[in-house]
């Protein structure tokens, strides 16, 4: 799966949790999940588990800390595919 495809799926997973529609409309690799998309930090676990289910991967707790932007998520997921 290409990184572009991963990006599309990641954005799809983040969409229901993103409270900033403007940032979501212009989402890119440097878009910050918490600060820009305004995803509630309490929902990050749901987002990470959705990544696991969608891509059939396991994401360790330590890896979660390294995911700040959409690009970080895409790179992490791509590395595990």
């Amino acid at each position: 799966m290409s990184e572009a495809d991963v990006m599309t799926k990641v954005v799809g997973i983040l969409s229901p949790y993103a409270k900033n529609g403007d940032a979501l409309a212009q989402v890119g690799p440097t878009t910050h999940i918490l600060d820009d998309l305004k995803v509630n930090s309490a929902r990050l676990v749901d987002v990470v588990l959705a990544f696991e289910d969608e891509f059939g991967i396991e994401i360790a707790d330590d890896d979660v800390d390294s995911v700040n932007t959409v690009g970080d998520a895409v790179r992490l997921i791509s590395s595990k595919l």
Partner: protein
Amino acid sequence: MSGAVDEGGGGAAVGRAAAADEAGAAPSRPPPAGSVDGRLGRDRLVLGVQRAVGRLLAPVWVPLLVVLMRYRMGWRIQRAEVVRREYRDLVAAGGPILVCANHLTLVDSALVAWALGSPAWYLAHYAALPWNVPERRNFTESIGSRVLVWLMKCVPVTRGGDRAEVAAVLGRLTHLLVRGETVLLFPEGGRSRSGRVDEESATYGVGRLLGSVPGCRVLCVYVRGERQEGFSDLPARNQRFRVCCETLRPTSRWTGLRGARDVSQQIVRTLIRLEQQHFDDRQ
């Protein structure tokens, strides 16, 4: 006091601390101050001092707090003896206890503690007086409030804040529970905006904390004033509160984040059930 603990990357720091404890290794020299072990050591020292000073002044502040609630605000807790008996039994059995409660006002931590024990009992069982986790921004206006918060067994957290800070808070709470102290958390995070326990609002710090403390029992407590319709800063004066509780030892077939979510949801669903019982009893 709002007792939100958002989940964060606390697993790594907590895991390292647990491994160090289990190994029983004594470092030949103190760890660097900026290291994880150094920070944990400093946190434990600070918590120890906080506990000792709070304990020393408890004969003043514990009864005073109850006098304020009982006589200044006119609050009453109905049937407190039922939950107090259950809590006393849990404490007598030994081991860590995590109290999880619904959240409607800024003083819920004090109300829950009052429901679970009398001032005299807490003076004799200070470890049973729950530590709680208020939102830092609610108590930073004055030095006086910060001192009071510190004295009253609070571990402040910035909800939605830096994940490293949240991880550090989880580490402190783990240390307290492992030490046999009681911690009070609100699984919904902040006060319930709908006025009812909302499973969709559940945060998973509770589940992650329980994953770090094997054998921890959970006491779910539902407390609500008879005239409390939604959330507020303070309950109305002369409010009568009804309280109910249920003890559980949540387990999950999953581990890691999925297990933490599963456990947290079990706790929130228990609170929802207690809430329904509360409203059914009112009819």
